[in-house]
């Protein structure tokens, strides 16, 4: 780790943390404090903007310029903030309901626009704050207070929305994977442009264990794969499994079996502009293929806020005015003496 002048404590506010004991959000908050300290952007140049939901309480626990706004609108508010004040590092916090239901439109447009903000999606597949309704990431058939007979609709896969919106950064982590979460958050902050980090979060009260199929300690090594740029795609308790190309698709194999060797295992390239493989990796769901965690896609491209600054500078260099009056006087006028 790099050394900086800041410690995680420098980013903690004095407000008491109000999440339920055991809620996954605690771990995510800790990872964020640590990632910020590593990143080393001073608190007064850091903004944390959220919508509404349990997860959206997060800004109150940050020593930064924090704004807990209204349901679904965090991405739009963060966009205006960043355009207005591009010197600030902006973190936007949303739950799965906040970011993908009521705020779905702002979410995809922020990604498409490639505004340079770090968008954290705390996905507990439920509406926590309103006490347990299904969300746009709940699986088909999910039983909740608002779907007593099971839902009859398919969920969003957040990554797929990001790719649909032509996103250039997508990472995924799990609340309890502190290291990987920090790694993803740091990469997101360093990425130039909109970076989406989906963090699977456990809601102990209304959706306890919803990610267990994947996150349970017993299965996690076999049902997840930690992707690292430039490294082989290997996984498994004994790190004896790998991902190989199978036609246009991916296949999980046991290294040393069926003729597969380490040489067949793919090397992760998060920086390649074509997103075909990134999409396949992001869509793996822990059933036949392991769920990908870590930084899946991280590709530089033009950001909205930089382009606004560039355009202002270009226009002003070409025909800028010093004042409103100068601008008006350069137009159609007449004088009355």
């Amino acid at each position, binding site marked *: 780790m790099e050394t900086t002048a800041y410690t995680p404590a420098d980013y903690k506010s004095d407000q008491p943390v109000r999440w339920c004991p055991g809620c996954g959000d605690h771990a995510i908050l800790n990872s964020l404090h640590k990632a910020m300290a590593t990143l080393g952007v001073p608190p*007064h140049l850091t903004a944390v903007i959220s919508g509404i939901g349990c997860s959206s309480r997060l800004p*109150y626990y940050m020593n930064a310029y924090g704004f807990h706004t209204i349901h679904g609108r965090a991405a739009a508010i963060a966009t*205006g903030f960043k*355009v207005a004040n591009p010197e600030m590092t902006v973190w936007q916090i949303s739950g799965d309901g906040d970011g993908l239901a009521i705020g779905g439109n702002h979410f995809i*447009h922020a990604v498409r626009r490639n505004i340079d903000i770090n968008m954290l999606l705390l996905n507990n597949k439920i509406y926590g704050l309103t006490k347990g309704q299904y969300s746009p990431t709940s699986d088909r058939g999910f039983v909740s207070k608002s779907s007593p007979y099971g839902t009859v609709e398919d969920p969003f896969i957040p990554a797929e929305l990001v790719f649909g919106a032509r996103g250039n950064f997508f990472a995924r982590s799990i609340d309890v994977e502190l290291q990987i979460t920090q790694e993803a958050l740091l990469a997101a902050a360093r990425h130039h442009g909109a970076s989406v980090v989906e963090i699977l979060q456990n809601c102990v009260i209304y959706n306890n264990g919803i990610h267990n199929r994947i996150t349970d300690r017993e299965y996690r090594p076999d049902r997840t794969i930690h992707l690292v740029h430039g490294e082989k795609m290997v996984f498994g308790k004994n790190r004896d499994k790998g991902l190989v190309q199978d036609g246009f698709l991916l296949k999980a194999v046991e290294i040393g079996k069926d003729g597969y060797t380490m040489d067949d295992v793919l090397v992760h390239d998060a920086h390649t502009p074509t997103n075909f493989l990134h999409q396949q990796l992001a869509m793996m769901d822990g059933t036949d293929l392991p769920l990908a965690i870590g930084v899946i896609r991280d590709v530089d491209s033009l950001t909205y806020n930089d382009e606004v600054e560039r355009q202002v500078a270009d226009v002003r260099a070409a025909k800028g005015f010093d004042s409103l009056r100068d601008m008006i006087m350069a137009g159609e006028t007449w004088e*009355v003496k």
Partner: protein
Amino acid sequence: MLEETSVKTLDKVVIRFSGDSGDGMQLVGNIFTNVSAGLGNEVSTFPDYPAEIRAPQGSLGGVSGFQVSVGTGVHTPGDKCDVLVAMNPAALKQNVKHVKPGGVIVVDIDSFKEADLKKALFTTDNPFAELGINAQVLEVPVTSITKAALADSGLDNKSIIKCRNFFALGLVCWLFDRPLESVVHFLSKKFAKKPAILDANTKVLNAGFNYGHNIHASVSTYRVETKEARPGVYTDINGNTATAWGLIMASEKSGRPLFLGSYPITPATDILHELAKRKDLGVKAVQMEDEIAGVCSAIGASFAGDLAVTSTSGPGLALKSEGIGLAVIAELPLVIIDVQRGGPSTGLPTKTEQTDLMQALYGRNGESPVAVVAPASPTDCFTMAFEASRIAIEHMTPVILLTDAFIGNGSSAWRIPDADEYPEIKPPYVPADKLAEGAWRPYDRNADNLVRYWAIPGTEGGMHRLGGLEKDYATGAISTDPVNHERMVHTRREKIARIANDIPALEVLYDCGDADTLLLGWGGTYGHLRTAAQELNDAGHKVAFTHFRYINPLPANTGEVLSKYKKVVVAELNTGMFADYLQSRFPEVKIERVNKIQGQPFLVEEVVSAVTKIMEDK
């Protein structure tokens, strides 16, 4: 050249150009306005757009109009016109009701063929008789003369036909004694990159002028009075542009960069267009994905330290209401512009109304008072956009600026102000010593006006958290304490009420001490109401007049002014929203109402007769 025709000298005249939406009537109307303003006339315009962008050619739904009044004492584009230009039968049919008895109607008789008449749903072959026209009709073969004038131009037929509007303009210039040089000056700028078109239009313009001259048209021509205007440099400006420029002035005067978050909607879009161009002054105008994102991006920009604005019309204001509530509780400066149009729902999107008043005042959940101001005229949009920004920043509050389609699209000559004619705007920054001591809390307030201080992100030591949850009066931390909530509600309300100490008093016109009726209005109806008051007084009725530009809070002397009159007549383009608002505040005042909800501005004569009737009713 005028000696052979009868010349009327008038203090003001009204001309209405009308044709198919593709006929270029708005363009020639604008040029005529600019030329007249350049001659020292006061001008006031009313572009009347068709609701459909591309209605079938020649149909009644596709008629586009542009009315302008020029002269002295011009406060409105005029009730009815002295001269109507109608390029086709549909334009004639739609606009004949706007012509004064004995006025002049110029028609392009070439486009009055059987097929044209059919498209405009005439049932006989004599449209003039069918409409019972009581005016001098000048039947001019505009199309054929235009074609003849451009026979050698090398232009194709379609391009030639497109020049017809300049024939009409040339003829109108002859009628009103406008020199063609200044028209040509405008043309050469507009068509600088298209010399062939410039040449053709100039030719046709002259042909129109000469036509009037040569046929010794036996119609009246007009000489329009000019007034000694205040010396200075002038430009022609419409309300939407004036609004955009007022915001820029406020940005210069406050030192806060200007941010606009917006989503296109008629009739407000031109504000977005203008500010998008103003990157040359460093303005950042962002077209967001919807109105909610428009207001939210502005709230983000405000939190970040900008003079943040969102522009829209009624339906968009409805979408923004939750966001405005956030800015109320976070006590962030925010300017929300509503260029009102006919509602409800999509309603009459290109037409004017004052029907968003209640929405602006009350259209949010919870106790969420905001300041509301409303410009009186196209040029006043500049001043009131500046005022909205000043109040927003100095009082840390959302401010709704209620303009309307009539003043937003209408234009007037405007003297370009010097920067020192407008006051400095002083953002209530957190005092540096408080920051240094770490003694500042986000809801610490100025004891006089109850305004909280603004810590601009990026300021060392200024870190704080805002949010939509109720906050503790003292610490600024989340609080659900019942008594604290009530205190915060009252504090936010009182903060808005105290803005009354920081706005001008209400002024009364035409009161020589013996009027017992007061006519009043608010916002964009000023020109019509003031002219009506003038005419009432000229006719011997003693009517005082006042007009509200500050709606919430009301000017501090409002109660005192209203209490002086036996009858207070509130005229507005809705069913009586401002009247209800005043009545709720001043229950003892006897309020009479004059209302119109037709998507059209008042006519002066309507107001005069309504007020006369009210005065007669004892």
